[in-house]
Protein backbone atom coordinates (compact mmCIF):
# COMPACT_ATOMS: atom_id res chain seq x y z
CA UNK A 1 0.00 0.00 0.00
CA UNK A 2 1.22 3.48 -0.80
CA UNK A 3 2.43 5.36 2.27
CA UNK A 4 0.71 8.54 3.39
CA UNK A 5 3.93 10.49 2.85
CA UNK A 6 4.21 9.42 -0.76
CA UNK A 7 0.55 10.09 -1.28
CA UNK A 8 0.83 13.56 0.19
CA UNK A 9 3.66 14.34 -2.18
CA UNK A 10 1.55 13.15 -5.08
CA UNK A 11 -1.51 15.03 -3.86
CA UNK A 12 0.36 18.27 -3.35
CA UNK A 13 2.01 17.88 -6.72
CA UNK A 14 -1.31 17.59 -8.48
CA UNK A 15 -3.28 20.06 -6.41
CA UNK A 16 -0.90 22.96 -6.23
CA UNK A 17 0.96 22.90 -9.49
CA UNK A 18 -0.43 24.84 -12.39
CA UNK A 19 -0.20 22.52 -15.37
CA UNK A 20 -0.17 23.95 -18.82
CA UNK A 21 -2.56 22.29 -21.23
CA UNK A 22 -4.74 20.61 -18.58
CA UNK A 23 -8.44 21.34 -18.99
CA UNK A 24 -10.79 22.27 -16.16
CA UNK A 25 -12.61 18.97 -16.57
CA UNK A 26 -9.36 17.06 -16.28
CA UNK A 27 -8.45 18.99 -13.15
CA UNK A 28 -11.85 18.18 -11.63
CA UNK A 29 -11.42 14.49 -12.37
CA UNK A 30 -7.93 14.55 -10.86
CA UNK A 31 -9.19 16.25 -7.70
CA UNK A 32 -12.06 13.78 -7.34
CA UNK A 33 -9.62 10.91 -7.72
CA UNK A 34 -7.29 12.43 -5.13
CA UNK A 35 -10.15 12.85 -2.70
CA UNK A 36 -11.34 9.27 -3.15
CA UNK A 37 -7.79 7.96 -2.83
CA UNK A 38 -7.16 9.99 0.32
CA UNK A 39 -10.34 8.69 1.94
CA UNK A 40 -9.34 5.15 0.98
CA UNK A 41 -5.89 5.23 2.56
CA UNK A 42 -6.70 7.39 5.58
CA UNK A 43 -10.41 7.23 6.45
CA UNK A 44 -11.48 8.77 9.72
CA UNK A 45 -12.72 5.38 10.91
CA UNK A 46 -9.12 4.10 10.86
CA UNK A 47 -7.56 7.17 12.47
CA UNK A 48 -6.24 6.86 16.05
CA UNK A 49 -8.88 7.63 18.67
CA UNK A 50 -7.04 10.74 19.87
CA UNK A 51 -6.98 12.10 16.31
CA UNK A 52 -10.67 11.40 15.81
CA UNK A 53 -11.49 13.07 19.11
CA UNK A 54 -9.39 16.13 18.24
CA UNK A 55 -11.08 16.45 14.83
CA UNK A 56 -14.58 16.06 16.25
CA UNK A 57 -13.86 18.42 19.16
CA UNK A 58 -12.74 21.09 16.73
CA UNK A 59 -15.89 20.59 14.67
CA UNK A 60 -18.05 20.78 17.80
CA UNK A 61 -16.51 24.09 18.87
CA UNK A 62 -17.38 25.49 15.45
CA UNK A 63 -20.89 24.01 15.42
CA UNK A 64 -21.97 25.38 18.79
CA UNK A 65 -21.23 28.98 17.80
CA UNK A 66 -22.48 31.53 20.33
CA UNK A 67 -25.16 29.25 21.79
CA UNK A 68 -25.86 29.48 25.51
CA UNK A 69 -28.18 26.49 25.45
CA UNK A 70 -26.37 23.59 27.04
CA UNK A 71 -29.08 21.34 25.64
CA UNK A 72 -28.31 22.52 22.12
CA UNK A 73 -24.55 22.39 22.74
CA UNK A 74 -24.51 18.73 23.78
CA UNK A 75 -26.86 17.72 20.98
CA UNK A 76 -24.51 18.98 18.26
CA UNK A 77 -23.68 16.13 15.85
CA UNK A 78 -19.92 16.18 16.52
CA UNK A 79 -20.49 16.02 20.29
CA UNK A 80 -22.82 13.06 19.83
CA UNK A 81 -20.23 11.35 17.63
CA UNK A 82 -17.65 11.80 20.39
CA UNK A 83 -20.04 10.07 22.80
CA UNK A 84 -20.42 7.36 20.18
CA UNK A 85 -16.68 6.69 20.30
CA UNK A 86 -17.31 5.06 23.67
CA UNK A 87 -15.01 4.42 26.66
CA UNK A 88 -11.83 4.53 24.55
CA UNK A 89 -12.22 8.30 24.13
CA UNK A 90 -12.46 9.11 27.84
CA UNK A 91 -8.68 9.55 28.39
CA UNK A 92 -8.59 11.97 25.43
CA UNK A 93 -11.48 13.99 26.84
CA UNK A 94 -9.86 14.16 30.28
CA UNK A 95 -6.52 15.19 28.77
CA UNK A 96 -8.26 17.95 26.80
CA UNK A 97 -10.14 19.11 29.91
CA UNK A 98 -6.93 19.33 31.91
CA UNK A 99 -5.52 21.97 29.55
CA UNK A 100 -8.72 23.58 28.27
CA UNK A 101 -11.80 23.11 30.48
CA UNK A 102 -15.01 22.89 28.51
CA UNK A 103 -18.48 21.34 28.72
CA UNK A 104 -17.48 17.69 28.38
CA UNK A 105 -19.39 16.62 31.49
CA UNK A 106 -22.50 15.44 29.69
CA UNK A 107 -20.40 13.27 27.37
CA UNK A 108 -18.36 11.83 30.22
CA UNK A 109 -21.47 10.87 32.16
CA UNK A 110 -23.12 9.45 29.05
CA UNK A 111 -20.09 7.29 28.28
CA UNK A 112 -19.09 6.16 31.77
CA UNK A 113 -22.37 6.24 33.68
CA UNK A 114 -20.53 8.09 36.45
CA UNK A 115 -21.22 11.53 37.85
CA UNK A 116 -18.57 12.79 40.28
CA UNK A 117 -19.90 16.39 40.28
CA UNK A 118 -21.09 17.43 43.75
CA UNK A 119 -24.47 19.15 43.81
CA UNK A 120 -23.02 22.46 44.96
CA UNK A 121 -20.70 22.53 41.93
CA UNK A 122 -23.55 22.56 39.38
CA UNK A 123 -22.63 24.84 36.49
CA UNK A 124 -19.22 25.74 37.94
CA UNK A 125 -16.82 24.86 35.11
CA UNK A 126 -13.70 24.83 37.30
CA UNK A 127 -15.21 22.73 40.08
CA UNK A 128 -16.85 20.31 37.62
CA UNK A 129 -13.58 19.93 35.72
CA UNK A 130 -11.65 19.24 38.92
CA UNK A 131 -14.22 16.66 39.99
CA UNK A 132 -13.84 14.79 36.69
CA UNK A 133 -10.03 15.02 36.69
CA UNK A 134 -9.97 13.58 40.23
CA UNK A 135 -12.27 10.81 39.01
CA UNK A 136 -9.93 10.15 36.08
CA UNK A 137 -6.95 9.84 38.40
CA UNK A 138 -8.82 7.47 40.70
CA UNK A 139 -9.74 5.33 37.71
CA UNK A 140 -6.14 5.35 36.48
CA UNK A 141 -7.10 7.03 33.20
CA UNK A 142 -4.82 10.05 33.60
CA UNK A 143 -1.66 10.69 35.59
Amino acid at each position, binding site marked *: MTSLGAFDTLRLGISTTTQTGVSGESTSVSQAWESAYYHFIAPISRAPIATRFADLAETW*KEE*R*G*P*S*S*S*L*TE*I*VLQPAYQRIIGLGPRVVPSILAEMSVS*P*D*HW*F*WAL*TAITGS*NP*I*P*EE*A*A*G*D*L*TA*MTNAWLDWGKQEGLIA
Partner: protein
Amino acid sequence: MSRSKIVASFPRLRSNPFYITSPETKQYNCIAWAAGVMDRWWWPGMKPFAYWPPNVPTRIQLDSFVAAFRSLGYDICDSGTQEPRFAKIALFVDSNGTPTHAARQLPSGRWSSKLGPWEDIDHTIFGLEAGNYGIVVQYMKRPVT
Protein backbone atom coordinates in the same frame (compact mmCIF):
# COMPACT_ATOMS: atom_id res chain seq x y z
CA MET B 1 -13.83 34.95 18.80
CA SER B 2 -13.08 37.21 15.89
CA ARG B 3 -15.33 40.18 15.18
CA SER B 4 -16.07 38.72 11.76
CA LYS B 5 -17.45 35.52 13.30
CA ILE B 6 -19.59 37.54 15.70
CA VAL B 7 -20.96 39.58 12.81
CA ALA B 8 -21.62 36.39 10.84
CA SER B 9 -23.85 35.18 13.68
CA PHE B 10 -25.54 38.57 14.18
CA PRO B 11 -25.64 40.31 10.79
CA ARG B 12 -27.14 43.55 12.08
CA LEU B 13 -23.93 44.16 14.02
CA ARG B 14 -22.30 44.86 10.68
CA SER B 15 -23.95 48.29 10.66
CA ASN B 16 -24.60 48.73 14.39
CA PRO B 17 -21.50 49.44 16.49
CA PHE B 18 -20.60 46.86 19.12
CA TYR B 19 -17.68 46.51 21.47
CA ILE B 20 -16.03 43.38 22.86
CA THR B 21 -15.79 43.93 26.61
CA SER B 22 -14.35 40.72 28.06
CA PRO B 23 -12.05 37.85 27.22
CA GLU B 24 -13.59 34.68 25.79
CA THR B 25 -14.62 32.31 28.60
CA LYS B 26 -16.76 29.24 29.15
CA GLN B 27 -17.18 29.91 32.87
CA TYR B 28 -20.55 31.61 32.43
CA ASN B 29 -23.17 32.17 29.77
CA CYS B 30 -25.64 34.90 28.89
CA ILE B 31 -28.27 33.88 31.42
CA ALA B 32 -25.73 33.92 34.25
CA TRP B 33 -24.32 37.23 33.01
CA ALA B 34 -27.78 38.83 32.89
CA ALA B 35 -28.28 37.55 36.44
CA GLY B 36 -25.02 39.14 37.54
CA VAL B 37 -23.13 35.84 37.89
CA MET B 38 -19.72 35.12 36.38
CA ASP B 39 -18.81 31.72 37.80
CA ARG B 40 -21.66 29.48 36.65
CA TRP B 41 -23.29 28.35 33.43
CA TRP B 42 -27.07 28.74 33.85
CA TRP B 43 -29.49 26.60 31.89
CA PRO B 44 -32.71 24.82 32.92
CA GLY B 45 -33.04 21.08 33.18
CA MET B 46 -29.32 20.27 32.90
CA LYS B 47 -28.38 19.83 36.54
CA PRO B 48 -25.59 19.17 37.55
CA PHE B 49 -23.98 20.19 34.25
CA ALA B 50 -25.53 23.66 34.53
CA TYR B 51 -26.97 25.72 37.36
CA TRP B 52 -30.62 26.71 37.62
CA PRO B 53 -32.19 28.51 40.59
CA PRO B 54 -33.94 26.18 43.05
CA ASN B 55 -37.73 25.88 42.90
CA VAL B 56 -37.91 27.38 39.40
CA PRO B 57 -39.48 25.41 36.50
CA THR B 58 -36.90 23.59 34.39
CA ARG B 59 -38.68 23.27 31.05
CA ILE B 60 -36.96 25.18 28.27
CA GLN B 61 -39.70 27.71 27.72
CA LEU B 62 -40.07 31.42 28.31
CA ASP B 63 -42.04 31.02 31.54
CA SER B 64 -39.12 29.21 33.16
CA PHE B 65 -36.73 32.03 32.33
CA VAL B 66 -39.20 34.66 33.52
CA ALA B 67 -39.56 32.70 36.77
CA ALA B 68 -35.77 32.48 37.15
CA PHE B 69 -35.44 36.26 36.93
CA ARG B 70 -38.48 36.76 39.17
CA SER B 71 -36.55 34.75 41.76
CA LEU B 72 -33.90 37.49 41.55
CA GLY B 73 -36.42 40.29 42.11
CA TYR B 74 -37.22 41.17 38.50
CA ASP B 75 -40.75 41.77 37.26
CA ILE B 76 -42.00 41.96 33.69
CA CYS B 77 -42.18 45.37 32.01
CA ASP B 78 -43.25 46.73 28.66
CA SER B 79 -40.05 47.99 27.08
CA GLY B 80 -36.30 48.25 27.18
CA THR B 81 -36.43 52.01 27.51
CA GLN B 82 -34.03 53.08 30.21
CA GLU B 83 -35.67 54.02 33.50
CA PRO B 84 -33.82 55.76 36.33
CA ARG B 85 -33.22 53.53 39.37
CA PHE B 86 -34.20 50.33 37.51
CA ALA B 87 -32.04 47.55 36.12
CA LYS B 88 -33.46 45.77 33.07
CA ILE B 89 -32.92 42.50 31.28
CA ALA B 90 -34.18 41.33 27.87
CA LEU B 91 -35.15 37.76 26.99
CA PHE B 92 -34.70 36.51 23.41
CA VAL B 93 -36.47 33.61 21.71
CA ASP B 94 -35.97 31.90 18.35
CA SER B 95 -38.59 31.42 15.64
CA ASN B 96 -40.04 28.46 17.59
CA GLY B 97 -40.48 30.55 20.71
CA THR B 98 -37.64 28.71 22.45
CA PRO B 99 -35.56 30.91 24.77
CA THR B 100 -32.06 31.48 23.47
CA HIS B 101 -30.53 34.44 25.21
CA ALA B 102 -30.67 37.13 27.87
CA ALA B 103 -29.05 40.57 27.82
CA ARG B 104 -28.78 43.14 30.58
CA GLN B 105 -29.03 46.89 30.29
CA LEU B 106 -25.99 49.03 31.00
CA PRO B 107 -26.11 52.40 32.80
CA SER B 108 -25.53 53.98 29.38
CA GLY B 109 -28.84 52.57 28.14
CA ARG B 110 -27.05 50.19 25.78
CA TRP B 111 -27.01 46.45 26.48
CA SER B 112 -24.45 43.86 27.50
CA SER B 113 -24.49 40.22 26.36
CA LYS B 114 -22.34 37.19 26.92
CA LEU B 115 -22.28 35.31 23.62
CA GLY B 116 -22.43 31.70 24.79
CA PRO B 117 -18.82 30.48 25.15
CA TRP B 118 -17.52 33.61 23.41
CA GLU B 119 -16.96 37.12 24.82
CA ASP B 120 -19.21 39.77 26.38
CA ILE B 121 -20.21 42.55 24.03
CA ASP B 122 -21.75 46.01 24.43
CA HIS B 123 -24.50 46.44 21.82
CA THR B 124 -27.98 47.68 21.01
CA ILE B 125 -31.00 45.37 21.15
CA PHE B 126 -31.66 46.02 17.46
CA GLY B 127 -28.07 45.05 16.65
CA LEU B 128 -28.36 41.63 18.29
CA GLU B 129 -31.84 40.76 17.02
CA ALA B 130 -32.56 38.81 13.84
CA GLY B 131 -29.43 36.71 14.25
CA ASN B 132 -28.70 33.46 16.08
CA TYR B 133 -30.77 34.50 19.09
CA GLY B 134 -33.94 35.59 17.33
CA ILE B 135 -35.84 38.49 18.85
CA VAL B 136 -36.66 39.99 22.25
CA VAL B 137 -40.09 38.99 23.51
CA GLN B 138 -39.86 40.00 27.16
CA TYR B 139 -38.27 42.77 29.16
CA MET B 140 -37.98 42.62 32.95
CA LYS B 141 -36.86 45.17 35.52
CA ARG B 142 -36.02 45.48 39.19
CA PRO B 143 -35.17 48.43 41.37
CA VAL B 144 -31.51 49.24 41.71
CA THR B 145 -30.59 49.00 45.37
